């Protein structure tokens, strides 16, 4: 459908006003909301992701695209709820206790939203219990944690341990990221995944959620 391709193209250019206008037109034309989401907005973000991985575009353009995605989603959200279109999943994110850096965590949140996930952002300086409590309260299947300091990385293990202690292992998966971390560290603490940057984190979350 031409309008869905136009939405996808406008999103790739980071043109939030055009994405908003075209999404409104598609709704008026009674295009199914799931099609606008999957074949317009998410299809556009998938192209953005591919171009970013191929170094054809850079992070500022990805963020402009994500902002455009948000503009379209804002119009679609009430209809998605009305039509009971299932979400791709809910993810609780935050920077761990003692850490006030939030740029990386914010980028992950924006890109996850752009990939069609519902994001519950707990902010920074988040205690271990709060991550797990929020995941339970919000029905989130994934917890994402960020740390930029070696002194705060230990909080991540506390969260992994808490998930196990509360019998949530397998139901709630944990992904970690941040400059001082590594895949080895993630394995050591028993996290389910490690994202080496924001774009990679989104790919990992998609894999954890079982969506493409």
């Amino acid at each position, binding site marked *: 459908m031409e309008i869905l391709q136009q939405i996808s193209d406008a999103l790739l*250019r*980071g*043109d939030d006003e055009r994405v908003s206008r075209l999404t409104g037109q598609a709704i008026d034309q009674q295009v199914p909301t799931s099609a606008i989401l999957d074949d317009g907005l998410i299809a556009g973000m998938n192209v953005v992701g591919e171009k970013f991985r191929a170094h054809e575009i*850079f*992070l*500022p*353009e990805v*963020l*402009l695209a*994500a*902002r455009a995605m*948000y503009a379209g989603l804002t119009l679609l959200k009430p209809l998605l709820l009305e039509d009971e279109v299932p979400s791709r999943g809910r993810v609780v994110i935050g920077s761990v*206790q*003692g*850490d*006030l*850096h*939030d*740029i990386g965590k*914010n*980028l992950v949140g*924006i890109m996850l939203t752009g990939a069609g996930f519902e994001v519950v952002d707990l902010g920074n300086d988040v205690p271990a219990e709060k991550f797990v409590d929020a995941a339970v309260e919000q029905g989130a299947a994934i917890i994402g944690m960020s740390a930029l*300091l*070696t*002194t*705060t990385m230990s909080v991540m293990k506390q969260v992994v341990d808490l998930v196990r202690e509360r019998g949530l292992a397998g139901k709630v998966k944990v992904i970690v990221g941040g400059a001082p971390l*590594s895949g080895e560290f993630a394995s050591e603490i028993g996290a389910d995944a490690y994202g080496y940057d924001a774009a990679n984190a989104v790919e990992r979350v998609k894999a954890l959620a079982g969506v493409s």
Partner: protein
Amino acid sequence: MRQVVALDAARTPPDRDAVLRGQGIPAGAEIPSRVQRVIDQALELYAEFAEPRGIFQETSSSDFQSIYAGEGLNAQRTPLERVFPRAQRLALFAVTLGEAVSREITELFGRNEPTLGYTLDAVASERADTAAELIADLFLEGLMREGRADSDARALAYSPGYCGWHITGQRSLFERLQPQRIGITLNASCLMQPLKSVSGVLAAGEAPIHDFDNDFDFCDTCSTYQCRHRIATLVGTRRERKPEGG
């Protein structure tokens, strides 16, 4: 010698190439006009919100030895433990861009302006490093005026959290320097607030004292290669050991 200084030159926004590099965009890449406009906006915001200032205090090699030892968590081998004993003069330092820039970055994300927030963050990070370079220059100029450093001496900054100097070293550094005087505080995890702050030691001496091979364990996981650039600037060499698999 202890000085609190306003770092007016750090108020000046960096050039666009520096901002692009900070965002991982290589030189010569085609930049869409929308991204160019965001950079313009970020530079304007930086000029509006930045309040760069710094403090430095001279210290002896023996004093610094105990500050550097901190809580005993440094890497077994580090470049700094070779640099500072050979330095002619040492000074503890801290610089900050103030709270307003960091607050604006956070608020931009909250207002769904992630590209602008991210770009302003890149601008501020580059300027914070520049502020550290400026205070190193001020320290060296003062030493030269007083005839306490050779005319060909160079001063470079080294910071806790990098190159094997464990971040918990911030505690002993803060205890001695008291950067609270310029509004920088340290939290329980050794994180400075405002976030756009840099602290550490300034080592002044002949350029070769700053030269070292990047063959330390922690070099394998370093992605900045900042030390290679600094050494190349000082001594005209750039010996590199790429990390395994890198």
